[in-house]
């Protein structure tokens, strides 16, 4: 054990065919790391196809895990270890490996057929190539070794091959000095009803571990100590799952039944899959005939007194815009979850982007203001979607909750809250007592300009709402010019009033004033935090503010921005938040954009900061 090096953090990237169980291997190693107390972040990188033909470049699936004994905010730029199950996986991912990094390769994935499918030149095999000289290569016939381990179990080759990811896992457990027990227990629980499969998996896991022990890696073992994280109980969670939990939590805390209507779309569908399993919470999920039916049925449910929520992405959000404006007119609660993906149009459905912010704010006909909030990490999805529900209900308004494909599928440890710790959501239903002189005014407002929720079934409050401009107070149809202007401004002011109900914008890190503020929103959070931390350790102290509330802005935002000589706004789009800042405050905020369907790397952020500091 003496030759075990200690590392503060490690990035492993798993790559292979979708059929190779890459996502599963990644998740399992993630769980092991989490259970050992590491902090971590993950980034799955799916191919667009369901199952592209095995062995092709298009079919390569990836999963990146960053774990460490320090706090981890992002899945890392380049990896320390690259696991490749075939030739295509190597070809597609080699540029992601650090110089001198470790490659674990399945020799059986480098036969002639695989090399051809990966479009290597005739006769060329990268494993025998000088190009890999600078790396530490562990290549082994994983498929064969797996089959050998399972020989006597009477399984078909296909069944046996399903376990080959366990070999990799065993190998890595040895390499990172992890105990096997928890995983073995896990497998036995999971396949309790199929003991044959449990047995196979455990065997192969052990085979991988022993192989590593007895063969190659005497000089390459590492240990990553537990992180000094905030004490508490943790679990691992992905963004879409956290979103689903956040919605259930909002339903429980508000005592409103949750009605979630959607039409499947990548990368939002898992929210539906999750929620459809919580029927014992009274959650109703509806897979509607299209996105318009989804959002409008949520509006119908909301009229009836449910928490009406819809979710989609890209083209599906575009289809909902007409109906969202109706909810603006109705002044009913509605939460729209937009799990952003790379556009425009169908774009790149499995890739992330922050391209829909301006659409959320301006993408409706007429003056139709809504609130917009955005999550910054997978676990933050829980809090932010909960907050979206609170705002929707407490301000009787549609609220956009923005997530993206990177948050949706990324995982991180979560020091999860208890129901008792969650904030309140105050619902204000109208009651028969709300009648004034015998009549009910559905559009009477409180001091925040919010109307009450008058739900069918309440005697005496019968009223009609509609998408035509309505008379102040009564809600009757009106085309009176002054009334229209008044109503447009009331609806705007109501949204603006939300700023009074949300926390002031805080600094995430860095000096209270100075040369440069990095202003960000959404899933760029972790990478920017990491980059600025590194810069700080290199002697450059730059400030960072990360916005959760994008409409309305927190009240203090202008004052905050003005404390810095320069403001840079990194975004995974062509510049959207930066436009809002420039328009509103006439501050010459600098855009920094990456539009590749991939998150920023730490290096890209650091370089931009350097560039700005040098120029100014």
């Amino acid at each position: 054990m003496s030759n075990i090096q200690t590392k503060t953090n490690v990035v492993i990237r798993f790559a292979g065919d979708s059929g190779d169980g890459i996502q599963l291997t990644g998740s399992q190693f993630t769980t092991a790391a989490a259970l050992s107390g590491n902090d971590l972040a993950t980034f799955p990188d799916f191919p667009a196809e369901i199952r592209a033909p095995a062995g092709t470049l298009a079919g390569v699936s990836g999963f990146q895990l960053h774990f460490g004994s320090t706090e981890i905010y992002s899945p890392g730029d380049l990896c320390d270890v690259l696991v490749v199950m075939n030739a295509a996986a190597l070809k597609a991912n080699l540029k992601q490996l650090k110089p001198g990094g470790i490659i674990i390769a399945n020799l059986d994935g480098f036969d002639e057929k695989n090399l051809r499918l990966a479009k290597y030149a005739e006769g060329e095999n990268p494993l025998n190539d000088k190009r890999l000289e600078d790396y530490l290569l562990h290549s082994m016939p994983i498929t064969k070794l797996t089959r050998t381990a399972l020989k006597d179990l009477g399984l078909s080759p296909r069944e046996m091959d399903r376990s080959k990811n366990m070999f990799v896992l065993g190998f890595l457990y040895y390499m990172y000095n992890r105990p096997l027990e928890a995983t073995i227990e896990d497998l036995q629980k999971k396949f309790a009803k199929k003991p044959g499969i449990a047995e196979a998996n455990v065997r192969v896991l052990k085979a991988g571990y022993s192989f590593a022990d007895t063969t190659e890696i005497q000089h390459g073992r590492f240990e990553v100590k537990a992180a000094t994280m905030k004490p508490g109980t943790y679990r691992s969670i992905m963004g879409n799952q956290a979103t689903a939990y956040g919605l259930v939590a909002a339903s429980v805390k508000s005592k409103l039944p949750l009605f979630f209507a959607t039409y499947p779309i990548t990368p939002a569908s898992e929210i539906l899959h999750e929620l459809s399993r919580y029927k014992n919470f009274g959650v109703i999920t509806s897979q509607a005939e299209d996105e318009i039916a989804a959002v409008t049925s949520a509006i119908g449910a909301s009229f009836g007194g449910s928490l009406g929520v819809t979710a989609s992405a890209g083209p599906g959000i575009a289809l909902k815009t007409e109906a969202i404006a109706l909810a603006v007119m109705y002044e009913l609660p509605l939460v729209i979850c937009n799990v952003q993906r790379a556009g425009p149009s169908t774009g790149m459905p499995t890739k992330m982007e922050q391209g829909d912010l301006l659409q959320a704010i301006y993408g409706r006909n007429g003056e139709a203001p809504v609130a917009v909030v955005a999550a910054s990490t997978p676990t933050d999805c829980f809090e932010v979607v909960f907050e979206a529900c609170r705002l929707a209900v407490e301000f009787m308004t549609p609220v956009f909750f923005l997530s993206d494909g990177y948050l949706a599928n990324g995982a991180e440890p979560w020091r999860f809250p208890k129901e008792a710790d969650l904030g309140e959501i105050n619902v204000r239903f109208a009651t028969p007592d709300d009648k004034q002189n015998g009549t009910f005014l559905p559009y009477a407002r409180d001091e925040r300009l919010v109307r009450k929720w008058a739900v069918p079934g309440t005697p005496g409050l019968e009223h009609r709402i509609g998408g035509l401009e309505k008379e102040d107070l009564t809600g009757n149809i009106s085309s009176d010019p002054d009334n229209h202007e008044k109503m447009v401004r009331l609806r705007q002011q109501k949204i603006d009033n939300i700023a009074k109900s949300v926390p002031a914008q805080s600094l995430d890190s860095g000096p209270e004033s100075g040369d440069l503020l990095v202003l960000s929103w959404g899933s760029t959070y972790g990478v920017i935090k990491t980059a600025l931390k590194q810069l700080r350790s290199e002697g450059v102290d730059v400030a960072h503010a990360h916005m959760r509330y994008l409409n309305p802005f927190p009240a203090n935002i202008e004052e905050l921005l003005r404390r810095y000589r320069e403001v840079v706004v990194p975004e995974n789009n062509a510049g959207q938040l930066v436009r809002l800042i420039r328009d509103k405050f006439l501050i010459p905020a600098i855009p920094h954009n990456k539009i590749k369907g991939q998150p920023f790397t730490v290096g890209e952020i650091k370089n931009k900061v350097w560039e700005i500091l040098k120029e100014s």
Partner: protein
Amino acid sequence: MSQTDTLPRQDDLPPSFTSQDLVTDQDVRWCPGCGDYSILKQVQKVLPEFGLKKEEIVFVSGIGCSSRFPYYMNTYGMHSIHGRAAAIATGLKITRPELSVWVISGDGDSLSIGGNHTIHLLRKNPDLNLLIFNNQIYGLTKGQFSPTSPQGKVTKSSPMGSVEHPFNPLALALGADASFIARSIDRDPAHLQAMIRRSHAHKGTSLLEVYQNCNVFNDGAFFTFTDRATKSDSVVVLEHGQPLLFGAERRKGIRMDGGGTPKIVDLDADGYAESDLWIHDEKDLFKASLLARFFDNPTEPGALPRPIGVFYAVERPCLEAMVHRQLTYAREKFGEGNLDKLIEGDSTWVIR
């Protein structure tokens, strides 16, 4: 005994509100003479009979002249966006099964832009009532042809006549597995009332098509079916278990030959008895399909009369009932949801 008398009455309690209670303080803004007035009146007339409370009733509409309806009903109501009332109502009914939900729509609203929601509504079969005011024209936008306008129709947008083959709304509904379809006419108040009662009584989505005269942009589209002179020869009133009889003296009838072809016969001249005629059976999908195809141009000689009444009515499980059954089952099986347990999940670790 007329069909009107045999209709099931929901409840024997005295009505908790009157027709007059259903009138709102808003001026009704349809054109004078519009057929919508009659439909409004008949709905207001029969609603009190159902033993409902006023606050349990919700009218949901899309956009169109017809869709102004909810503003004139002193119940809960939503005037929404064009074509989406069915979807809105579905969300409402799933979450609030105890409400009495009525969807009011036009031929454009429910069959043009809203066609998809209409067919999906019918297949899913929540227990709500869909009334389509079919005036074969776009009224609110001032007179373009609609998907029910006859081919050749000259309108503002089809100066040389529409080239589009129209939908047969009831045939379409049957194709979408509707569990209840009926037709009535604005100018036949008693029949219309009966059909509203039947719509309400049906468990599942009931589609009631109402022929409605738009006296401004499509005046007279249904006059053949309402004019005293032509009505009895051009309309056949469907009654369950009764033969298909029509004509001024009810001496004309319809027979079906083996291949499913309907034939008009004269009871007196052709020597048939009533028992030889096609006996209407609301539960028979194939007869209903044939009846829906009685779609001849009524002004042509020998045209089959246009049926009004309940074409088809069968029970199948309602969407909201099945949804709530699953909720109940889930609660029985897994216990009432526990948020802390959900959030905690299966696999946690502790950092000290």
